[in-house]
């Protein structure tokens, strides 16, 4: 048992950031060689001496040398495991003193129980029923009635057709080479074939008391789509529940003998909720992606998905929120600070960050030298709030939360991504509105008729007014595309009292049926009245303020200004009146000419984003 980790004094570098950080660096050792994931980490006081130890089910550097590692202080002890661990938990088996928790390692079809770090009990899952056809075939092989090749063919036939899958022995036989078949059959034919399932996940559930030091049951999820609850003393199966898919993450709250809720995230991308008396799932949350982690925070179920996001759900499966992560989630676990009653979710991300969220609020970000693959938070040694992380390269990082540190809502950065839709402030339906709808219901036909009749009258009136405006050439914008012209007059400065000079009111009568010859002449001018004259500029569009001073009887200086009268002459067209002008631009001639006939197919249709301003002129009550 070599001490592979070393306590590090706080490094000199980065002292300023250290001071503002909420964490003290305790250990940072890149060479511990621990490769594991959050489910295989547990913290417990294994010897009853008040020193909490870290239990890790280690996969080994290449996943070949599974080991149970126990870290006490800086001393690491390890013992080999028979198979790769799937989960490691610590739990109390009996309620009498001295209470020393047992370690349970789920590995393959078995749960290995350790007490005082000595092997104590091995629980194996009950074997599954074997396919009778397969049994027959092997029996025949045992009696040498068939040769290995026939055996292989028959087994392959069974594998393809039968509903019950083959046993491990048959599957391995199907994999071996021709030359080794004989030996394999001889070696194994005497053994009876068995079909075993595998434990995929494991957690603990308090038996009948909610206390910290109460006896807990083990809850196992198996490859055969079942959930089992084990008695902590006798290791008999207390309850069995079946799921539609293989559970990969489990979260439990409540007590087994009172009431409990089980949430199981499964490989089909769904989270199933089970209650005490339900043999089948009660609710189902269908995620849009595969779950990568499941944490129960207070009553909110936080699911991490492989779409780089965290989702919060209620126990009934209602989605509360979604938080988008900057990178893929590698590990998730619960952060529980008992002294402040804080529960939050920690998520180790692929971009070498560990983010801590309370609901949607980001409380803290920890930057690590390597991506964190597993993390847990709790009491280690004699320190209450320790964060233990292992990294992708097998390193171990421990950080201690400062006792003065407070994770305030405001202390964390506000989440910039508000993925939650803001609730619209829709006004209530008033009683008047309801009354009006009643009236509509009663007199709908009559209202419609009146409206339609009025609409016809309005169309007539509008058309009359329009024709009249055209005849008297009042419109400031020309109607036809051949004569693109737009005029408007702006009065600037004080205007004489109303009624004295109707001529200069904005509605300038303009002859829009412009004679072609006149339009061509560069400086055709015509007179509107005794005091003003309008001018049409030549081909080059320009707009310059153009003063006409006049002495009105009661007024002062009058400035009449045309802002845009333009006649751009585009290339290839000899009509000088073409082109809609833009005041003060001459450089855009080519561009406009090129866009003379825009290909309308290329244009997207005007979307609804082009808006008419909502009733701009609800005009004022002028009193």
């Amino acid at each position, binding site marked *: 048992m070599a001490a592979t980790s070393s306590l590090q004094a706080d490094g000199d570098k980065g002292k300023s950031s250290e001071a503002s950080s909420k964490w003290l660096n305790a250990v940072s050792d890149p060479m511990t060689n621990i490769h594991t994931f959050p489910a295989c980490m547990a913290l417990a006081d294994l010897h009853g001496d008040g020193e909490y130890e870290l239990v890790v089910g280690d996969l080994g550097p290449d996943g070949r040398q599974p080991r149970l590692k126990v870290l006490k202080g800086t001393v690491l002890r390890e013992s080999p495991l028979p198979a790769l661990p799937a989960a490691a938990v610590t739990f109390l088996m009996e309620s009498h003193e001295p209470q020393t928790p047992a370690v349970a390692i789920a590995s393959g079809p078995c749960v290995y129980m350790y007490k005082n770090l000595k092997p104590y009990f091995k629980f194996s899952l009950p074997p599954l029923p074997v396919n009778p056809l397969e049994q027959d075939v092997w029996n025949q092989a045992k009696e040498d009635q068939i040769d290995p090749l026939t055996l292989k063919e028959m087994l392959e036939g069974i594998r393809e057709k039968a509903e019950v899958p083959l046993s491990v022995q048959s599957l391995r036989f199907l994999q071996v080479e021709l030359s080794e078949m004989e030996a394999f059959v001889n070696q194994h034919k005497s053994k009876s074939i068995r079909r075993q399932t595998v434990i995929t996940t494991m957690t603990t559930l308090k038996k009948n008391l909610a206390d910290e030091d109460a006896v807990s049951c083990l809850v196992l999820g198996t490859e055969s789509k079942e959930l089992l609850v084990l008695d902590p003393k006798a290791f008999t199966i207390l309850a069995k529940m079946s799921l539609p898919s293989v559970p990969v993450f489990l979260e439990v709250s409540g007590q087994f003998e009172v009431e409990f809720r089980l949430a199981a995230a499964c490989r089909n991308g769904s989270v199933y909720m089970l209650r005490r008396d339900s043999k089948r799932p009660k609710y189902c949350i269908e995620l849009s992606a595969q779950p990568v982690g499941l944490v129960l925070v207070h009553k909110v179920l936080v699911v991490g998905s492989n779409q780089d996001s965290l989702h919060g759900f209620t126990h009934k499966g209602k989605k509360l929120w979604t938080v988008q992560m900057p990178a893929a989630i590698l590990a998730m676990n619960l952060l529980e600070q008992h002294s402040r009653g804080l529960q939050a979710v920690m998520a180790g991300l692929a971009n070498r960050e560990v983010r801590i969220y309370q609901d949607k609020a980001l409380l803290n970000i920890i930057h690590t030298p390597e991506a964190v693959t597993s993390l847990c938070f709790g009491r280690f040694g004699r320190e209450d709030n320790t964060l233990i992380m292992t990294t992708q390269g097998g390193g171990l990082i421990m950080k201690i939360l400062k006792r003065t540190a407070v994770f305030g809502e405001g202390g964390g950065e506000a989440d910039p991504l508000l993925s939650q839709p803001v609730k619209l402030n*829709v*006004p209530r339906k*008033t009683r*008047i*509105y309801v009354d*009006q709808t009643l009236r509509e219901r009663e007199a709908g036909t*009559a*209202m419609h008729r009146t*409206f339609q009749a*009025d*609409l016809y*009258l*309005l*169309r007539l009136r*509008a*058309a009359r*007014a*329009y024709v009249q*405006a055209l005849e008297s050439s*009042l*419109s*400031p*914008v020309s109607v036809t*595309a051949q004569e*693109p012209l*737009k*005029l408007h*007059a702006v009065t*600037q*400065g*004080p205007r004489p009292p109303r009624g004295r000079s109707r001529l200069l*009111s*904005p*509605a300038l009568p303009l002859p829009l049926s412009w004679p072609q010859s006149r339009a061509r002449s560069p400086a055709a001018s015509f007179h509107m009245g005794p005091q003003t004259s309008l001018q049409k500029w030549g081909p080059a569009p320009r707009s310059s303020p153009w003063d006409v001073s006049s002495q009105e009887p009661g007024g002062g200086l009058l400035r009449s200004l045309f*802002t*845009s009268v333009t006649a751009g002459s585009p290339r290839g067209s000899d009509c000088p009146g073409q*082109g*809609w002008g*833009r*005041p003060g631009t001459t450089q855009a001639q080519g561009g*406009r000419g090129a*866009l003379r006939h825009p290909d309308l197919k290329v*244009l*997207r249709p*005007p979307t609804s*984003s*082009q*808006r*008419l*301003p*909502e*009733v*701009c*002129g*609800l*005009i*004022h*009550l*002028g*009193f």
Partner: protein
Amino acid sequence: MEPLFLAWSYFRRRRFQLCADLCTQILEKSPCDQEPDPALPVSQAAWILKARALTEMVYVDEIDTDQDGIAEMMLDENAIAQVPRPGTSLKLPGTNQTGGPSPTVRPITQAGRPITGCLRSGTQSGRPGTLEQAIRMPRTAYTARPIASSSGRFVRLGTASMLTSPDGPFINLSRLNLTKYAQKPKLAKALFEYIFHHENDVKTALDLAALSTEHSQYKDWWWKVQLGKCYYRLRLYREAEKQFKSALKQQEMVDTFLYLAKVYISLDQPVTAINLFKQGLNKFPGEVTLLYGIARIYEKMNNMSSATEYYKETLKQDNTHVGAIAFIGIDHFYAEQPEVALRFFRRVLQMGVYNCPLFNNLGLCCFYAQQYDMTLTSFERALSLAEDEEEVAAVWYNLGHIAVGVGDMNLAHQCFRLALVSDNNFAEAYNNLAVLEMRRGHVEQAKALLQTASSLIPNLYEPHYNFATISDQIGDLQRSYTAAQKSAAAFPAHMDTKRLIEQLKQHFAVL
């Protein structure tokens, strides 16, 4: 009948012209009309009566006639802070720092304020940013901005009164011995009002007021208020403030509160003005003018929730207050409750108002509250009641909206064009016409119309945004970006603009 009594009776029946004529006859009998003989009280009484009658003829309530001229707009040095903090100034049009309604929900006026329910001086204009904006005439204002406020309405009143007396002025101001009149307080008050209102000679009025205050040993609050009024006219705000404050100390009057608040508004200190009004409300609880004053200031500051609260309070005290009814009605309309707005406008109709804007509003409310049978009738009536071109334009413009709502694009097109026929500077109509042109596929025309719209009212964000969208669609990214920037300046919180700018920036980055 005794002629003086008859004259007095005419005065009380507000037949001022008859009263003045009769007084002239009385005064003709006693030749010294310029200087009434103290021995002849009848002539003195007639002199006072005539002065009052002439004043009443042209009397304008000083409190609300406030129109800033170009000079005040552009050369304003009275504001204390040049870059005021948000929520403490009236000078930030078009921006929503104080939580005003969004321009997507509630359209803005030319000056960049949310549309109000009532046309009054000051609310239309806002404060222009450039000289060109300052000299351009607001579309819905009835007169152009005067060069300076002292040369505006007051000059016209003065000249008008000059014309009414063909024999020359009643009192020749240059020949007055002000010191002598200041000794006679009763005479002096009538004379002051005559000088101030009828002759519009603020300097002489100020001299008289100063002498009279001195004579009353600075104990008469009335004279102090008059001094303050004179100083206000002369734009000496600090002196005016001093006088009004001193008057308030002696005698708290509603008028004085209003005058003082006006001074503070001119100094661009709306918060102080509101506090002053609240102080006044402690002395005169439930005073309508004070409540209304507070509401108006909040409205100018774009703080619509507080404004609504005070308008409602105003209505509680005076349930025929047209300004308050109009504001609350409009507020309900833009808060998506047209049926409630309809109630308010019907109330105005019941009060005997019968004009174009009211029927226009009724029609709009009916349409959006789905009372279709009343809609077009109301608009019809509004059109026939319209008094001038601007009103006609507004009604056609709104009819255009109805046509868009009905789905008759041809009619909408005609309506917007008719709006432009009546009012060539109707930027909103240009914008809407451009959108319709765009739907027909006339890109160039749409662009030209949008440019006109944006040059007419730069505060509107819609033309800029629409122009940016069109330019973006035809591939003119540079112009699209420029227009989008303008749109963002006019309405910083507009999501679509932001998205467009982001998209364009990405485009530029890729290129």
